[in-house]
């Protein structure tokens, strides 16, 4: 009897491992494929000739990306915007979510509705631009953070975490022991909310790292972040290709570079995030579901 159950344990172990391996392959192969494609002749990629190894090996794509003057400054700009933006956003999230998590906050319902409303209705591009313009933020890096500083969806997750996962008794106990409200917040609430803090940091970081549209609209070309620099390289190359259609040489040949640049810029832009992810991942699994259930 015992032996049989041991066997079935091992069998299920094997089956589970096989399933996980298949899932891993399904998830990892497309990523791997992009890496391979970034080293291959794009027309051979599209003709279905690449599978595990590059076909028609070339470094032209990476050459095109790294020989661009803007790439280093774009990278530094992105790092700056990501760090400042993430700190700003997380601070804003905490100072809005914590009060809203207090059951005795006057007008709590109305405030919640006020925040929720913005999730469903936005001003639209032009009106928002006009507001940013009139506040004199156009061209300044604060235009990237201030208009969308509080992500309401994230704020609700954090609020729920405060409500459900931090025992009210602990807060009470600290107050009975003589903590001020602020001290409670800094010494009790923040340390207890590390998992959700990590999740919010990652969310904001990824969002700021990938954001190019806000920068395109508000920065007016000053200090472009990495995705915008990448985008310009790509646009430049596809413009060359389409203009080449009418003059000297080949659309087909130049279009090849455009296609290649797409793969390379994906890799270059995603790499920093891929490197950082594993380090915050341990908090991630703990925090991700926390606060997701409304109590």
């Amino acid at each position, binding site marked *: 009897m015992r032996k049989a159950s041991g066997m079935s344990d091992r069998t299920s172990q094997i089956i589970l491992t096989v399933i996980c391996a298949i899932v891993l392959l399904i998830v990892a192969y497309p990523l791997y494929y992009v890496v391979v494609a970034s080293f291959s002749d794009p027309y051979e990629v599209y003709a279905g000739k690449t599978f595990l190894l590059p076909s028609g090996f070339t470094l032209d794509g990476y050459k095109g990306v790294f020989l661009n003057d803007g790439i280093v400054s774009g990278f530094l700009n992105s790092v700056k915007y990501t760090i400042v933006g993430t700190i700003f956003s997380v601070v804003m999230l905490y100072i809005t979510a914590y009060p809203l998590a207090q059951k005795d906050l006057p007008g709590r319902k109305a405030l919640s509705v006020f925040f929720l409303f913005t999730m469903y209705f936005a001003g639209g591009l032009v009106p928002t631009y006009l507001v940013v313009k009139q506040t004199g933020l156009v061209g300044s890096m604060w235009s990237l953070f201030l208009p969308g500083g509080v992500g309401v969806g994230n704020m609700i997750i954090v609020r729920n975490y405060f409500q459900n996962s931090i025992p009210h008794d602990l807060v009470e106990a600290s107050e009975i022991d003589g903590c001020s409200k602020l001290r409670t917040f800094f010494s009790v609430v923040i340390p207890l909310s590390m998992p959700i803090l990590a999740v919010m940091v990652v969310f904001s970081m990824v969002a700021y790292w990938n954001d190019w549209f806000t920068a395109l609209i508000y920065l007016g070309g000053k200090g472009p972040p990495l995705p915008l620099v990448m985008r*310009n390289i790509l646009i430049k190359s596809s413009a060359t290709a389409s203009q080449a259609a009418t003059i000297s040489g080949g*659309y087909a040949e130049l279009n090849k570079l455009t296609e290649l640049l797409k793969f390379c810029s994906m890799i270059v832009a995603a790499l920093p995030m891929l490197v950082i992810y594993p380090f915050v991942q341990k908090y991630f699994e703990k925090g991700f579901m926390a606060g997701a259930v409304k109590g």
Partner: protein
Amino acid sequence: MKQKIFSAALAAAMLAGILSGCSGGLVNNVNDGTVNDNLDQTEFNIMGGISALSSGYDNNEVIAALQESAGIHITWETMSDSLAEQVNIRITGGQLPDAFMGVGFSNYDLARYGDDGTFLDLVPYLTPDIMPNLCAILEDHPEIRAAITMEDGGIYGLPSGEQMTTAGIGAPMDEAFSIFSVPQYSMINKAWLDDLGLEVPTSLDELHDVLKAFKDNDMSAKYYGNAPGSTLPMTTGFDEWCWGQNIFYAGFGFTNWPNDVINDIHLKSDGTVEFVCASDAYRDCLTYFHDWYAEGLMDVEMFSQSDSQLIAKCQQGYVGVSTWWYIEELMGEYAEDYVFLPPLTGPKGTPYEDTCGVTIRPGSPISSGQLNITNKCQSPINLLKFFDQWYSGETVMQLQYGPIGVFFTGQDDKGMWLSITEEEAQAKYGKSAGEVRNTYETMGPKLILAEYYNEIFYMEDRAIERLTDLDQFWMPYVEDTTFYPVDCVFTGMEMETIDWHKADFESAVKEQEGLWLRDGGPTDAEWEKYKEYLSTKCGMDDLLQVYQDAYDRYSAAE
């Protein structure tokens, strides 16, 4: 109760949004038919599009020289992408520059901004004193003036356009055809045909048998040694500009090229306008080609592939028949094996047996959306004098390609300017001639008339080659050379109708066309339902009326 209050608040908020969206439309209307003779302003601010490859207008010696001779200075605010969003933001926000250049406003926008006084009406300024060059051109070409005159009689922008026609290779000016007349050149692998002992097909039935033979013999594997089963007898895009399947529809008497007027429009030689997508020939055509698709002769990816994917397949030698702008570019190193596949006659035993009706695609329009002066400009005369210089052949040549001394190296004995060769460009600038051109090309009101190619500079070699093919090989298959004039002028009401229906109509037709090709042609009931749908939901009848009326006015004016 609570919910009620909430929804009331919501409604109020939304209403506020709508109201604020509407305000701010009051602009001082400058279009009272008089000339503003102020000459004080010499510093101008111009916003607009620029090629992503340009090195900027501040460094452009052609533009610098033109500014100097006009005695003005321009501050450029240029961008190469997301131009439309930024221009809209500026117009809505009332933060206008003195002029917009290279934006490409549609006639609909022009009428709107002309009407509300955002754009200056240039009619009073089109005098030989202010704009001698342009006036001379408009005198010789009344059709250009007609094309840029809006329905209210105003002209809200300076004309631009490129007339690349067979006149450039010696055809008489009034019988010249645009390089866009037949956008898709179909081509077939002659080496495979020879290998199988087959002739170049002349009818769709013959092509069908040829494609079948390509497939059955797996010619890509057999002849080029590719992987077994890699043969694609025929692959094209779907309703795409120069790489669609539309040329093959000629066997049913029409070729519904995607175009700048509205897709599927056809002007019959008696002057009536029709939509081919509602004709019986169209229905028969899709029913017929579905069989090809079902037999695997047409590529299953034709509906989804991009041009890059098409090129990829062709350059691997997988493909028997395809379409493109030139053979060499699509087929790469296999190009020598391909020849033009002429337009084919319809299937045997049907009314289309002798039909081979290639119809012509309209050329590119004359636009007045490339230079528009706004109500902000204090001294329009100074600015217009600057732009009048653009309307001389040698200047516009330099704005299009690059300065004399850089891109143009000298004149031949006929006085025609010669452009830099590849070798010279590489030796002198370390770039290809195309790249040299790209750094100088200016986006703006460039009017390149067909006669310039005979009098001032030569067309590029590849354009000449394509036009020669068009003239010698393709035009003989075109029996009826009427096409809907791309420069028809529409009234405000008509533009509203077009703006309202055109996108829906085109996408509904295209979607249904694809479904029938893939799944089989329509039954009687489906066909009736489809026509009904186009009429009731997509405004087909209204559109037809609009295009007919506009054409009737156009032909009456001629």
